[in-house]
């Protein structure tokens, strides 16, 4: 038997399954819409968390690779003294380079990074921001020990008022991100369970509504699998549609809410612009929706179809 002939029956059955599944959606538009809407809401909420975590993770990855030590200088230092402190820092073991940031430049950076808050500094009259040294480490010393060594060497050196490093802040940020991720996963699990129940109920209603049809199919020789597959596909279609609606909703929220949330997002993302999901992530979101739909259908069919 040729391959084409061998595939005729499975292909014909596949066409039947898809046609029947689409017919099932059309036969109960209201209950299908409820299932689609529920899945969409679940995925919008989970997706919003996911989007925030994705952007925060990107920011964290960028920070973690940018290992510098900042030494804040006393305002009383002369230009010569500032140069001497910079030379001392540059000569330390493990230091790749030193950049001197003047008070004026520090103020300009602050103004660029914080729209609207520069007025706060103007109210004070004089520039309160200190000059600083940004000390970059050689790659092999970009470790906790390496950073700690340079910080210890700079702390207490005459003319240096404070020494700071992003590592502590990075660890705190990573901890917050882990917490956010855990909350998002927990919320996602709860919502997914609720969604499964609603989809299962929707499909069960469809099974009851088509009880006679199922009995007749069984009498003409349809197997339980033949009867079940269109319902599973119906659940998958509801889920995929819900996923697509969720992607659209998230995209709309992203466009509309981003300007409003810009200053708040700057607190957690710094100057990194918030990005949206890429193509793979969008496909994954829709796939998760379809999976929820199939699982919900399977749960409702587990109770059995008539023989």
């Amino acid at each position, binding site marked *: 038997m040729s391959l084409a002939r061998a595939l005729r029956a*499975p292909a014909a*059955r596949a066409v*039947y399954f898809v046609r029947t599944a689409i017919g099932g959606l059309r036969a109960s538009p209201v209950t299908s819409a409820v299932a689609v809407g529920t899945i969409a809401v679940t995925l919008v909420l989970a997706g919003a968390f996911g989007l925030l975590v994705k952007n925060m993770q990107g920011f964290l990855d960028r920070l973690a690779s940018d290992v510098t030590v900042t030494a804040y200088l006393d305002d009383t230092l002369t230009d010569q003294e500032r140069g001497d402190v910079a030379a001392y820092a540059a000569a330390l073991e493990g230091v790749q380079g030193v950049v001197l940031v003047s008070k004026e430049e520090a103020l300009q950076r602050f103004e660029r990074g914080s729209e609207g808050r520069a007025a706060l500094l103007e109210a004070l009259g004089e520039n309160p921001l200190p000059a600083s040294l940004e000390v970059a480490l050689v790659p092999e010393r970009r470790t906790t020990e390496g950073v700690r060594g340079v910080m210890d060497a700079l702390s207490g050196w005459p003319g240096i008022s404070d020494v700071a490093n992003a590592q502590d802040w990075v660890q705190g940020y990573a901890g917050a991100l882990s917490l956010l991720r855990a909350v998002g996963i927990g919320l996602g699990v709860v919502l997914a369970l609720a969604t499964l129940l609603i989809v299962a109920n929707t499909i069960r209603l469809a099974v009851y509504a088509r009880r*006679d049809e199922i009995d007749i199919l069984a*009498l*003409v*020789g349809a197997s339980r699998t*033949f009867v079940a597959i269109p319902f599973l596909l119906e659940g998958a279609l509801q889920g995929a549609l819900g996923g697509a609606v969720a992607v659209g909703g998230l995209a709309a929220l992203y466009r509309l809410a981003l300007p409003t949330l810009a200053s708040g997002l700057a607190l957690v993302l710094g100057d990194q612009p918030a990005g949206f999901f890429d193509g793979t992530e969008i496909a994954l979101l829709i796939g998760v929706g379809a999976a929820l739909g199939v699982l919900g259908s399977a749960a409702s069919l587990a109770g059995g179809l008539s023989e």
Partner: protein
Amino acid sequence: MSGRREAEPASGDAPVRLYHVSKSYLAGTWALHDITLEIAKGEFVFLTGPSGAGKTTLMRLVLAAERPSDGQALILGRNVGRARRSAIPPLRRRIGVVFQDFKLLPRRTVEENVRVALDVMGTPVREARARAFAILKQVGLQHRRHHHPLSLSGGEQQRVAIARALVNEPELLLADEPTGNLDPDLTMEILDLISGAAARGTTVIVATHDQTILRRYRRRTLRLEAGRLVEDTPAVGVRA
């Protein structure tokens, strides 16, 4: 389609073989009691008896919708009492069934109702449409194929049901009171269609309590009373 064939003597290939079959639903209550019979390939048999005699139970047993409580039931070579659940659907695809209440799908068209038996087999859509048209033409309803069942008369609906039962060229045709809801003219029309299937070599079992039909068609008749086979009357002067 197959040509006319004569009924063959009962043998190991007989499509229906029941040996001391009994069926009980409640303890001490027997819907069927110690039934032994064979129906040969191509034979046309009436199953008769008063209401509650066990005709429908026997038909359901032949369709593997019931399992015997006792005895052996071999249908198209398959022991339905011992068959795995997964073996039942393939068996049913070799059997055509007609019911008193037609059992058509109201939301599907006439053609789709007939095609459902082919969809289950994985028949490609184009071929299924052609075969459905051909069988509907045989029963005289090809012009109503895009209508829905509820727009058809009782007789037309039963003809659709017969078309669905025959579209797969089944080896065995079961008709449980197929004319129970029809007037006398339509009754004969339906029985003629069913007889046509028998003439083409399909083994046919018709359950009926209509004595008019029994007198007119004079086929082998099995009579049940209170779950027992009380009479097995051979066909009278029937040309094959």
